[in-house]
């Protein structure tokens, strides 16, 4: 019954590897996001998709590539992982409305690059 689910919850990998994080929402929302939370707990948006279309793409290295096969899924693929990529990555979703809304978050994926 989890509204926004991410897999895996924990990911430990070596520098240079390629990894993916999956996200699925069962809320029927049109908009999905990826956020990065660094070691100082600062939460920053990376990408936003609406109905499988990229809407927001903040300054993120092009090693990060989001993929949205359908509006219920937004996966994050990271190439050539670096130590600085270590962080908690949150997927979120929200309804497509022009006014008041809120983002529903997944439980986060703690990525550790060694």
């Amino acid at each position: 019954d989890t509204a926004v689910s991410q897999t895996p919850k924990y990911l430990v990998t070596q520098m240079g590897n390629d990894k993916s994080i999956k996200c699925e929402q069962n809320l029927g929302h049109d908009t999905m996001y990826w956020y990065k939370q660094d070691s100082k707990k600062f939460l920053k948006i990376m990408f936003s998709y609406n109905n499988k279309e990229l809407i927001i793409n903040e300054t993120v290295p092009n090693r990060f590539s989001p993929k949205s096969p359908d509006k219920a899924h937004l996966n994050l693929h990271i190439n050539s992982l670096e130590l600085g990529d270590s962080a908690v990555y949150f997927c979120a979703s929200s309804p497509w409305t022009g006014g008041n809304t809120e983002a529903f978050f997944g439980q986060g994926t703690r990525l550790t690059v060694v």
Partner: protein
Amino acid sequence: AQTVTQSQPEMSVQEAETVTLSCTYDTSESDYYLFWYKQPPSRQMILVIRQEAYKQQNATENRFSVNFQKAAKSFSLKISDSQLGDAAMYFCAQGSGGYQKVTFGTGTKLQVIP
């Protein structure tokens, strides 16, 4: 550009007492909304309370209430009758525009002392 500032990195409160967490923001948008999210050690981001900017009345949710001062661009969170389960990181956030882009503050770590 939107900015959200939380000037208190850490706060502590005695159980059953009241604590207020501060937040200021800056935006050029006229239509926007504000949130407080809670992040306990489990990492899950949980919406605590939200406020539409056009509403003058301060939002309340049980023991949680806000003091929204639109002219001062201030949005503080008051927690009454603090409980041990309230211990968490609290993030102030602001969103606006049709893409629901939400900007988060840097968070305040709340400790509840038994």
